[in-house]
């Protein structure tokens, strides 16, 4: 029997851009980012388990400009995904489905995630 791929409904390319759509995509992207980010935690702990020699190499990687950019983005991904998760819990409870609530939550998600990231880095890294 010949097999055919199941038909797919039209995807991203046909939809008008909305903030809720962008935040939905961002929730997935930050989730995938944090998935990869666990490798950084594994790298950190494993290098520490092998001693100060390997740990100092990881410190150098994390402390380099590219390492700092990755850690900054990982911080934002963590806050964005965390707040996005709270947004989903609000929806799971049956609330927040009105137009105003959806758009308000989506904007709050992006604005608060950026603010929290900047505040965390300002307190713990920059000052």
């Amino acid at each position, binding site marked *: 029997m010949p097999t055919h791929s199941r038909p797919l409904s039209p995807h991203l390319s046909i939809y008008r851009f909305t903030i809720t759509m962008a935040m939905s995509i961002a929730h997935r992207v930050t989730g995938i980012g944090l*998935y990869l980010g*666990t490798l950084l935690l*594994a790298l950190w702990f494993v290098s520490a388990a092998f001693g100060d020699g390997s740990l100092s190499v990881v410190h150098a990687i994390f402390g380099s400009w590219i390492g700092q950019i990755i850690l900054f983005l990982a911080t934002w991904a963590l806050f964005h995904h*965390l707040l996005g998760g709270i947004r989903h819990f609000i929806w799971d409870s049956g609330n927040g489905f009105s137009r105003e609530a959806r758009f308000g939550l989506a904007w709050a998600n992006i604005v608060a995630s950026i603010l929290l990231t900047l505040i965390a880095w300002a307190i713990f890294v920059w000052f």
Partner: protein
Amino acid sequence: MSEISEKIIATPSTHYGAGKPSTWNFIVQRATGALNIAFALFFIYLVVRLARADAGTMSDLLSNPIVAIVTALMIISATMHMRIGMREVIEDYVHDEKLNRFCLMLNWLVAIAIAVVTLAALAKLVFWG
């Protein structure tokens, strides 16, 4: 193969799809998600306390029983959550049946591997300095 009608999908008794694991994944994703809110705050504390710290300082803090247990639970909760999240992405975008199964298996292996390796490193730091 008979046509998959709307009725088949909508009726729980037809058991269309993987009902039990899907319900389990639905519950676990929300349970670990809620826990991960607290674990994320703990993780920030951990990173702030141990940034640039040498291995001795790390094992000193991690050997505290509460810190050790919470860190271990955090690793387990995070890897469970990420496995289910990536599973949903694979289900949505990898349509080829063989590739889909391969990706789901790889995802499972990656999540387990990261959990095991990180927990082993934590155990080493906790018990053997």
